[in-house]
Each structure stands twice: as structure tokens, then as C-alpha cells.
């Protein structure tokens, strides 16, 4: 399998304010030496409880969190680039390749923009389109994520949580990325809607040949969608492997705890 992204010993640390005048504070290692590889076309899950550093890992890959150590290799044909060493300008082309779906659908859409404007933002950055083709493209994206194209001129607050998450997905797909980081895309949603969004992501992945890092705190969700998964706690990956095997046969006590935490009916 050809590797798309290879993370080695990634570290992200934030200073913690302490002492008078903010001096004498230590650092918190949100991500503490994480390594993994994702192959092209694969969905890899990343589970862990709240505060374990999942979001920070995802954000570090697309430079929304400051990388303080390690490397992130991105494979593009024969080229191999270490994303961690790029300047802001050098990183720009990778923004088109790597996109993120955010955790909170109520916070990730600008309340003052219509859906059309929201979808136009990525289109305006990368594609020089006239108004008509932008509209056409936006309608295509709406259909792609299972929304009514005629709702393009509504505002985000007129949609439900699940629909908003679909809009967030459409926005990420607008730039035609090859790698998508889904940061707990369903944890803010009703259980009944969760399955729909997960199936949508799964369908889109095979349709558009995407690679996906799927973050969740619910191990059952990750098991369902991903072929491989990694278990993270306190900034470290403690166990990883093929999803089904790992869930059937957890070795690390923390993984066992996560599995036990899944409600059974």
C-alpha cells in the first residue's frame, strides 16, 4: 500500500500560565510523541477520551496547532515533504489537499453567511469561477452531501445539527482534497443522526477516493467506519491495529476501558 502521510514523533505543547506575570509556568504536552502512518484510500480511526489530544493531533497536521517537534511527511507521487518544516506560504498548496471537518457544527459555520457564501469561500480561493459556475458547483456540492440545492440561500441557523455538519463536509470537499481529517464529526449530534453522517462520510470516501483520519471518543463509532484504529490517551498512542481485532482483543487496559464504556442495550 502506498503511504499518504507518515507522522513521526509529533509533539505539540502549550505553555500553561502560572505564577505572577505568567512566568514560571510549565508546558502541557497535548500531543507527546505520536507516530503513525496512513495509506492512500484508508480510513484510520483515532479514539481517546476527552482531553487526550486527538483534536490537537489533527490540527497539528494542518497547522492549526503549533508543532513543537517531530515530522509530518506527506507523500505526493514520488515527492515527500515534511509539513512540519514548511513556512506558512510553502504550506499553502497543502491546504487544498488536506481538509478538516470540525467537531461542533453549531460553531463551525459563520452565522452571517448564507450556505452559498460559505461554499463560495473555498471556491474563490482556489478556482477562478464566474458567478454562474460557482452556483452550479455549489449545487453539486449540496447534492453530494444529500442536501436540497434550493436551500443554498438559507442561513446556518435554519438547519439542524446534522444538516449543518453536511454543510461543513460540503465546504471541506469544495477544494477537492485527497485527505480529510474528521474531528469528532458526530459527537455533537443525536444518535439517530450520527449513523447518517457516518454513512455519508463512508460513501463519500469510496466515491471520491478520499483518505481519512477519523477522530472520535466513541470506540464503537470508530470500529464501524475504520479499517485500522489507534487509541490515544494523555497525548500518546497506546495501542493500534486492525479495528475488529483490536476491539475483540484489547491488550492495553485503557482500550478495554473504552470498550467497556460503550453503552450496551
Amino acid at each position, binding site marked *: 500500500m502506498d503511504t499518504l502521510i507518515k507522522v513521526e514523533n509529533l509533539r505539540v505543547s502549550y505553555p500553561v500560565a502560572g505564577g505572577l506575570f505568567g512566568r514560571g509556568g510549565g508546558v502541557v504536552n497535548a500531543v507527546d510523541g505520536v507516530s503513525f502512518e496512513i495509506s492512500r484510500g484508508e480510513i484510520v480511526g483515532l479514539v481517546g477520551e476527552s482531553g487526550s489530544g486527538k483534536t490537537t493531533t489533527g*490540527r497539528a497536521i*494542518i497547522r*492549526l496547532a503549533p508543532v513543537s517537534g517531530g515530522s509530518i511527511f506527506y507523500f505526493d507521487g514520488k515527492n515527500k515533504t515534511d509539513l512540519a518544516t514548511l513556512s506558512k506560504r510553502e504550506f*499553502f498548496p497543502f*491546504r*487544498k489537499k488536506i*481538509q*478538516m471537518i*470540525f*467537531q*461542533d457544527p453549531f*460553531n*463551525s*459555520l*459563520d*452565522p*452571517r*453567511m448564507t450556505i452559498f457564501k460559505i461554499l463560495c*469561500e*473555498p471556491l474563490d*480561493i*482556489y478556482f477562478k469561477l464566474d458567478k454562474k459556475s460557482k452556483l452550479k458547483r455549489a449545487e453539486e456540492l449540496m447534492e453530494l452531501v444529500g442536501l436540497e440545492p434550493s436551500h443554498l440561500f438559507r*442561513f446556518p*441557523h435554519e438547519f439542524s445539527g446534522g444538516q449543518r455538519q453536511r454543510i*461543513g463536509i460540503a*465546504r471541506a470537499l469544495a*477544494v477537492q482534497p485527497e485527505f480529510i481529517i474528521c474531528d469528532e464529526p458526530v459527537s455533537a449530534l443525536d444518535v439517530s443522526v450520527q449513523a447518517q453522517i457516518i454513512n455519508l462520510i463512508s460513501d463519500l470516501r469510496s466515491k471520491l477516493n478520499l483518505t481519512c483520519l477519523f477522530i472520535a471518543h466513541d470506540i464503537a463509532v470508530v470500529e464501524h467506519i475504520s479499517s485500522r484504529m489507534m487509541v490515544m490517551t494523555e497525548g500518546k498512542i497506546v495501542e493500534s491495529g486492525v479495528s475488529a481485532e483490536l476491539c475483540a482483543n484489547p491488550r492495553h487496559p485503557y482500550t478495554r476501558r473504552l470498550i467497556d464504556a460503550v453503552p450496551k442495550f
Partner: protein
Amino acid sequence: MKASLRAFRALLSVVFSDRHTGACFIFLAILCLACMFAEFFAPYPFAEQNLAIGASAPCAEHIFGTDILGRDVFTRILYGGRISFAVGFAATAVAVLIGACYGMVSALSPRRVDSAMMRLVDIAYALPFTILVILLMIIFGRSLWLIFVAIGAVEWLTMARIVRGMTLDIKSRQFVLASEALGQGFWGIMRLHILPNLIGTILVCATLTVPSVMLLESFLSFLGLGVQAPLPSWGTLVKEGAEYMLDAPWMLVFPAFFFSATLYCLNRVGAKLSAADLRRFSK
């Protein structure tokens, strides 16, 4: 253009959502227009004296009476209102411009710069600004422009704090992160997300700044440092009225009534707007 029209319509719908605030708004609108076109509405020129009648009580020719120089009080209220409103709006514009820019720059700067800029505001807050303004007036003389600038310079501080807080809040929202992840640059994020989400707050602050500016102007005029005679402002009218309070109470009562009513209405409208869901301004 279409968006600002929509915002204006939404604004009106908020103001008129209860009768009381609606009435306040209408009162303000009428008074503002009457003051702006004082030449048409005022029965006399503002400086026309009639020493023969002196301070006379309200009658058919002079519905609010005349002052000691025989000048029509109603006329002077309209012209005085023009100055007071002008100072109110112009100084507010200055305050909003300086305050909003300062607050925004502070919020978007690195942490150290931000806290340095905010400490500066704290220090400026602690200065006895009224005295400073009075000193400025004494040094540079009493010009209308100086009043605008001086008052604006005092009022921007609050604005700066509010806008900074709001910008920090918007900046941390996920849609700004998403925009960054899409490859949007700094100015794009400003134009598309930060500014549009700030406008409502700035607008509300501005409506609440106007009355406090007008009050400050009247205070300066009351001290004799404001608008120069024979040009009236509500502050000078109230001051003159207070001097002859016992002999000619109408000289105090009518200007004071219009002034207080205006301040009340401005505050009422501002409070209503700030209580409203600000999201409505964009729809």
C-alpha cells in the same frame, strides 16, 4: 448595499418591536429632522434679539417664551439641538473609528503586544479626562472641532475594550479555524468573518455612546468651555436657563426637557438594540 439595506430594515424591526421604544425612535427622528432643518421649522433666526420684550413667558408668538435678550427659546432649542446632535454623532464617529481599530488590532496582535495595548487603555481610563479636555480647550481655544476630537478621544476607550473582547471571541470560533484551514489569508478572514460579525456590536455601542457624548458636551458647555455664543447648544441653553431659573423658569424647563427626553430615548433605543439577538442584523 443590499446587505446594509437589509440590516437597516432588521434594525427598524427590532426598534419597533415594542411601542415604547418605537415611540422613542419616532421622537428622536422628528427632533433630529427638525434640528437639521432648523431654518425651516424655527420661527425666528437664532440670534435675533428683541430687547424690548426681554425674558417673556410663553405666549402665542413665542410658544416656549424668550430669553433675557428676547430670543425665541423654541428657535434656540432647535439650533442648539443641531449642535448637540452634531457633536454627539461626530464625536461618536471618532470614538468608534479609533476604538474599533484599536480594539481589533490589539485582539489580533501577539499576546504581549495585546496586553501592552490594553494596559495603555487601563492607564488612559485612570486619567482625569474631564480635566484633560478642559486643559485642551484652554490651550487651543474653544473650537467646535476640538470638542469633537476631545470627546471622541475620551469615549473610544470603552469601545476599544468591547471590540477587543468581541474580536477575541470571534477569532476563537471554529468557523475562523475552518477558514484558515481552507487557506484564507489574514485579510480575507477579516473581511469575510471578523468584520461582519463585529458590526452589530459596534452599532449597539455607538448608539449608547451618542447620549454619553452629548452629556459630556453639555457638561463642557455648562462650564463655559463648550460651544461659543451666540451659537447655542443644549448645554449652553441649560446653563443660561439655570442662571435665571427663578425669574424665567421657562428658559430652563424647555431646553432641559428636550435634552433629557433625547438622552432617555437614545438610551432606550440603544438598550433595546443591545438586548436584541444581534444575528438579526445580517438577515
